[in-house]
């Protein structure tokens, strides 16, 4: 109990004095009223007397007190509207930018920008930003969180969250008067009026050291992940990634070239078992599969391929895809690649397949030509992996046709086709 209370101590609850309220400067007065109704009436009188720096404190929002105190309507709804509008615009723009502009996303050929499908998310972002604005806006406008307030020094003030109805007037109000203000509060029916003092000197309001230490330590601790990330981004490391979730990066499987102790030969790769042939891999027909006829290169064609116009056209088509890049469309060895090598200052010539003066290709039997396509020749690689057997034979047929046509004379042309034709100058290569 101190001498600053204007009334006998409240017998209810913890009415054991006013704690520290006698130290320091006068911050303001706290008057207690018995009922919400009396608080409203007191607030009206205080406002009518011209006070502005006052506030009422109650365990719940008292009906009618806004009007009695003359509280202006808060601007919060306007802010929330702006927040919500930003949410709508932001939500629409986000979806448009991601799915229609930055990476137009084709889903079943539908338009990349189809608003009805974008409505739900725009709606949710609207609500989300409006909620954020109303929640955080309310606390900011209320100047909360606020760790401390001078009124908390008053014992009765701690009952506000229970059953007390208080009216506080701050001493800085220009109408504040040490005599008249308490009288006004009394006349309005106050049960008691307390002075509340505080020490305005900030040096006395120090934060406890352990709180400071905690804040510094936790801030430093929180920076560690960022520091590690920053270091990782700016430096090189020969260590493999640290896999928190290895997913399928390391699978329990054996690759073909790996060593494996399970087998005697220490190889993971298992060859064919001796004396067996895989299904569909017998390839017993020497002519068709290898171009051999009784151990010699065959000079004919496999019997299962009738020499038709269709086979010739197929051969031309395959030749132009697989062979012409080096050998050229006419087989003279001046394809796109040798030309490009020449353009780059190098010299590299593919075999001239049709050269009668150096008839390497012309003198090869069909079977050897087939084998060359399959397995390669000098620096040419084999095309067995790319070209099926029948297509290789079709190419052989077409190469024969090229060799003949590129070395043809007028006599080779049937008489009824000769009229109007002129032989070009014979190639000199």
């Amino acid at each position, binding site marked *: 109990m101190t001498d600053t209370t204007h009334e006998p101590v*409240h017998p209810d609850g913890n009415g054991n004095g006013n704690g520290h309220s006698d130290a320091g400067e006068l911050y303001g007065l706290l008057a207690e009223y*018995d*009922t919400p109704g009396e608080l409203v009436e007191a607030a009206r009188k205080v406002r009518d007397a011209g006070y502005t720096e006052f506030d009422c404190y109650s365990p719940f929002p008292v009906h009618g007190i806004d009007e009695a*105190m003359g509280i202006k309507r808060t601007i919060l709804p306007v802010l929330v509207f702006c927040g919500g509008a930003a949410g709508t615009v932001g939500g629409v723009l986000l*979806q448009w930018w991601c799915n229609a502009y930055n990476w137009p996303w084709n889903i079943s050929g539908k338009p990349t920008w189809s608003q009805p499908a*974008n409505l*739900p998310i725009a709606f949710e972002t609207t609500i989300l930003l409006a909620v954020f604005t109303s929640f955080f806006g309310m606390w900011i406008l209320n100047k909360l969180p606020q760790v*401390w307030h001078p009124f908390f020094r008053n014992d009765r003030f701690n009952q506000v969250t229970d059953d007390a109805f208080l009216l506080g007037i701050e001493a800085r109000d220009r109408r504040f008067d*040490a005599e008249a203000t308490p009288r006004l509060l009394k006349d309005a029916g106050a049960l008691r009026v307390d002075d509340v003092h505080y020490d305005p000197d900030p040096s006395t309001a120090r934060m406890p050291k352990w709180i400071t230490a905690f804040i510094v330590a936790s801030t430093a601790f929180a920076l560690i992940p960022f520091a590690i990330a920053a270091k990782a981004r700016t430096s090189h490391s020969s260590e493999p990634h640290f896999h928190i979730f290895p997913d399928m990066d390391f699978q329990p499987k054996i690759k073909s070239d790996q060593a494996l102790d399970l087998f005697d030969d220490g190889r993971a790769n298992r060859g064919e078992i001796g004396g067996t042939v895989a299904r569909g891999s017998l390839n017993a027909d020497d002519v068709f599969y290898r171009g051999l006829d009784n151990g010699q290169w065959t000079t004919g064609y496999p019997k299962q391929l009738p020499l038709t116009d269709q086979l010739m056209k197929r051969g031309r088509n395959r030749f132009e895809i697989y062979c012409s890049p080096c050998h050229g469309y006419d087989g003279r060895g001046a394809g796109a690649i040798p030309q490009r090598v020449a353009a780059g200052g190098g010299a590299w010539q593919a075999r001239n397949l049709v050269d009668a003066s150096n008839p390497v290709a012309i003198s090869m039997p069909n079977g050897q030509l087939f084998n060359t396509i399959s397995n390669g020749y000098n620096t040419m690689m084999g095309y067995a992996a790319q070209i099926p057997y029948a297509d290789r034979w079709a190419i052989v047929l077409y190469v024969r046709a090229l060799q003949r046509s590129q070395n043809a004379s007028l006599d080779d042309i049937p008489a009824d086709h000769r009229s109007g034709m002129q032989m070009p100058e014979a190639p000199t290569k």
Partner: protein
Amino acid sequence: MSTADATAESHPEAAGKAREAFRAITRDVAWVAEAPKPHKAWVAVLGIALALFAVGIYSIYVLVTTGIGVWGNSNTVDWAWDITNFVWWIGIGHAGTLISAVLFLTRQTWRVSINRSAEAMTIFAVMCAGLFPLLHTGRPWFAWWMIPHPNDMQMWPQFRSPLMWDVFAVSTYATTSILFWFMGLVPDLATFRDRSAARGDTIRAIIYGALSLGWRGSARQWHRYERAYLILAGLATPLVFSVHSVVSFDFATSQLPGWHTTIFPPYFVAGAIFSGFAMVFTLLIPARHLFNLKHIIKDEHVEAACKIMLGTGMMVGLAYATEFFIAWYSGNLFEGFAFINRAFGPFWWAYFLMVGCNVIVPQAFWFKKVRRAPVIIFVLCILINVGMWFERFVIIATSLARTFLPAQWSYYSPTRYDIGLFVGTIGLFFTLFLLFFRYAPVIAISEVKGAMPEAHAGKKH
């Protein structure tokens, strides 16, 4: 100063009747948290809940380290218990928002006794719900890929997918629910702060003090607070309807007979409210008994909730009937088959459990005697929860098990990990709810006070 005078005789004990009533509310609510030892039943139930939660943790461990294959999901029934549980939990959460927001906007003052625990229930239910789609992705550590962010893969989320709508709807809903709940808690946490300080319990005073943000109960603060509360209620109301509509779009926008129906959004929302109310009272009927809160959560409040369950139960029944009617009226062969299969196919037992629990059971609420008998209500609420779980199961599993091609047809049975995870979320839910009941203001103290007749004491008009 010398103002001691006239008001000396207005002694608080003589005049303080209204304040006595306010004090009683504070005391009765704070008692739950301030009791030095928790109730034996509380400890026992918490033990059970933690054991169930441990089962869930183990199931998640096996699931994450092995893969989705440990579940009963198959190529045919690729959504099963996981999505059933997701929709069930989300639906339960919706009653909390309905009670806190929709009933606030419609000025149903009886809500103040139950809104806090219903909001807490919402948050815990959404937490349980969120686990299922997260784990169903198979690689939950990549869940952040669903947040649109610039990345080396040059990939953006597909915003026209209902599953992406789900991500936005559910995360907005969870955020809003948490903020709304916390905002409502602040004045009551301030009450706890002041009571802890008065009792000399410094640790609690610091914790509650930090959480209550220095709340002073000032009229200027209350003014903005009430505005913000009204706005949040106004925002949460369309939100809650949108969330379950979006959840229903996951099904309704597909081409599957039994899913592809326009009735889904309203039907899902009604079902959500229905199941949510059932869950609120599954929790509150024992709680108000254990913690002597019957004079705050009154019989009238329970009765009002029974009427809501009766109403929403009949809406759900109407939806079941409408689905059958449309299946016949549309003349669509596949649609017709889907619904005949639903009632008489391999999952017929689930269908009849659903109809029995959701349509027939709530009919008991027509009788006032039932609406006033807490034990019966408790049992009926549990049955409704079972029925609503089966509703989602029936929609998901029966539709997927019998799609267009008979070659794809199959049956679904859960594995122990399906069951373990579901049981685990029930454990998580009850663990969180029990902790909340012990350490936070379980009743919105300031709102109850504001809704009492004493709140108008001393007014001249």
